[in-house]
């Protein structure tokens, strides 16, 4: 058995939305239904500025809170560790929406069920990869078996010091991020600075519960940092006299 996971290297991401659009097509979602959403944070002052992009989707938590609260057992985990939703069992109660720290669940209108990223599990059976991984032009995404120490993903997680977000909520997420987000500004500061880029009138299924989600995020946000990026940030601070 494998334990599937993903690495998202945000230092390669140009926020082109190809992952979202490929995912929508693969999963036959409507244009306003997306399993992948983006969180953006701008840091610094002109001209020393940096923007951080976090593409977020279901993190396929080992201890998935959504699974625990699902009253019908519609949310389940496969032997390979992929968290899935059984459409026939889902009653659309949205309990899962309220407990997901990543705001990863949306209502799919056609089936009136709550859905989310499924790692394109039907493709995996055929030896393929998730649509978001396959399409990513700068290869910001790597998919594979976290249990296999020789897999590309395991190697790269180590090499790039990738870490899950919200790692110490005890959910054991399986998407690992590489980000250059400043480690100086303090964890809470980073999180409150994150703005959900979706405009207010496009409500995700968990829209009403965004407050709770944000609180969850604020409590515990850990982003991986490259040692190179730490250095870079310090240089930025010293170099303020550079161009007006």
């Amino acid at each position, binding site marked *: 058995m494998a334990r599937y996971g993903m690495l998202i290297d945000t230092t*390669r991401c140009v*926020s082109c939305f190809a992952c979202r659009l490929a995912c929508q097509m693969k999963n036959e979602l409507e244009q306003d239904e*997306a399993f992948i959403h983006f969180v953006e944070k701008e840091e610094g002052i*002109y001209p020393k500025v940096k923007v951080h992009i976090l593409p977020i989707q279901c993190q396929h938590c080992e201890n998935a809170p959504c699974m625990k609260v699902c009253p019908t057992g519609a949310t389940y985990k496969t032997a390979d560790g992929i968290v899935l939703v059984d459409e026939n069992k889902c009653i659309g109660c949205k309990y899962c929406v309220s407990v997901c720290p990543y705001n990863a669940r949306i209502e799919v209108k056609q089936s009136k069920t709550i859905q989310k990223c499924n790692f394109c599990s039907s493709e995996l059976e055929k030896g393929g990869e998730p649509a978001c991984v*396959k399409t990513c032009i700068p290869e910001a995404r790597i998919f594979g078996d976290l249990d296999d120490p020789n897999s590309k993903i395991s190697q790269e997680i180590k090499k790039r010091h990738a870490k899950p977000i919200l790692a110490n909520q005890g959910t054991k997420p399986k998407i690992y991020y590489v980000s250059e987000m400043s480690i100086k500004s303090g964890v809470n500061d980073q999180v409150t600075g994150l703005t959900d880029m979706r405009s207010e009138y496009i409500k995700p299924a968990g829209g009403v519960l965004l407050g709770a989600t944000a609180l969850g995020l604020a409590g515990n946000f850990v982003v991986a940092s490259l040692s190179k990026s730490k250095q870079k940030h310090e240089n930025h601070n010293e170099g303020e006299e550079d161009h007006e």
Partner: protein
Amino acid sequence: MNQWVNAAKQEDIKRIPTLCNGCTSRCGIIATIKNGRLIHIEGNKEHPTNNGRLCGRAYGAAMLAYHKDRLQGPMKRVGDEFVPISWEQAYKEIGAKLKEIITKYGPASVMYMHNPKEVGKFYGYRFMNAIGSNSIQTHHSVCYISRDVGLEHTIGATPNTDAANAKYMLFIGRSVGDGIKPSHLQGMMKGRDKKAKIVCVDPRHNATANIVDEWIPIKPGTDIALLLAIANTMIKNDWYDKAFIDQYAIGFEEFKKEIQTYTPEWAEKITTIPATKIVEIAKDLSAAKPHAFIDPSWKGAFGCNYLNSPETARMVGLVNAMLGNINQKGGIYFAVEPKLGKLDSAKHPAPEKPKVDHIDGSGVEGQYPLVPSSKGMPHRTPGLIDEGKVKAVFINHFNPVRNTPDRQYNIDGYKKAELIVVCDIWMSETAELAHYVLPEPTYLERTEIIEPLAGKTGAVTIRQQVIDKFHPNTKPFSEIITGIAKEMGLGQYFNFTIDELNEALLKPTGISYKELKEKGVIKTKEMVEFGKVPKLKTESGKVEFYSEAYKKAGFSPIPVWMPPKVEPKKGEFRLIWGKQNVHSHSSTANIPQLMQVTKDYNLERVWINTKKAKELGIKDGDFVIIENDLFKGKIRAKVTERIFPDAIFLPGGYGAFAKNLKISNGFGLCPNDFVKTGTDPISGNGLMMETAVTVRKDV
């Protein structure tokens, strides 16, 4: 249950390779067709433009065939309305009107405009040759004509870059993460993985700035000063490739003399980039030579935006030459492509190329001698109609009314034409002004001409029909032109099918048509010889630091500092614009999947610098009014540190006003509305960013 099993068995699933149309890069895609309907696309791994990967636009465009706004059959204007007509009637009436105009005003008064792709070039040019007109315009004057002219007159042609092997890359105004061509972004990432240093110069912290080593903001329109100072620094310190220049260049001594005054300190005052930073760039570029380049870009800082754009482009060519990087690993190179065949002229006679001047003055002595007559200046056409020089305009998949500067100038001009024929899939702003609208099937429903693919190795590729026509009464451009030509008594020049033409084109490559259709793309034997400098396509065959052609045309033979035409006054902003990676100018805003991304992430907003916004009392998300003499528009502000303080950035591609583009109509603003029509005399560019506006909070 049994019924279901049978149904599943009967499912007919096909996978067919073709070419994307989300932008005009034409990436390889494999379309999955289930029971005749397109259900999925993915990248074709064999296609060198995208190597199996696709940007977001591809997925949006894939559903175009089923779009509700599509035109379903030919239409004719009657008063202010369009009424459906038959193809026979359309051919007949258009043919008769064209003949009348040619007799009355001469063939040069018939203009053909398009975004040049193989079908449009082959059929469009053959038709123009047949009627005796040379008046052909491509979208280049509002895209990258300055780049092409500048590079043509320095290094002979526009090169590619070997980014994967570069040690230092300088991008000036080009954002490979916004105007995505997958191979460009992939090449850059490969270079980055091998520790290349990448620097982005742009007034805006664009989507690529995020993944490179350094973003250096510059005052918009002053890029030529940066390049002059880089050249000055390289010469002063003897950092350039002297041996290369001695062997492969002319006019370097004159250039050296001229360039003496362009010091980094001088350029700092103009560009706002510190002199020390300019020296650093020059040093880094030089230290990495010849595995270094300044990207030849597209529209960017020297495609079509400023009066000085062609001269900026010349400097890009010359600084690259000073790095000795031509056809060197990690440098720039001239792509190779396969030579395709021709139709048998005994069976299929070709019309002669007419020897008449281009009606817009392109390539004509005393007018626009350096503008390539194959490209022309489409942004000038409304004026030429107004002057009575152009009477008929045939427009193929191009939307000049929305995509060239100055809305009213365009509308007023085109309205005066005696005949406008537009081929498109839907009712664009230009189609709204047409007398006849001739709808094509979408790219998924038509087979086009085999294309030679240029690169490090050659290849041939094809766009082919993957689904039946969704609207059966639409016709591909090849058939439309053939139909009109026959009606005009020019049928002898079009006595072949597109398949016969493709067979003939493919013949010298030894590749079978059937195999190409199965694979979508096949490599050919041509290869770039790295390490060997080819004979350049300039007049002298060498790098021209001094251009006789420029001198003859009355321009400075050596690139010199030239300010942009418009200098925003105190309190004004320069309006800059560019592509976003989910859109391709105005051609994708009407695609629901892509427009939804814009709406979800507020991508239509105007970028304004935080400090400036504060001074004006503008908060993020506030509505602001952008205004100048030409236009006034309202839009929400994106307040950000990521832009040069005296500029605002509006994404291109929104602000549709065609009433039948139901998704994009009335959404966002289009930069062209704020730009007065104008032309640079050297390369004929449309001066797309030569404008100043005021911004205030909407109250």
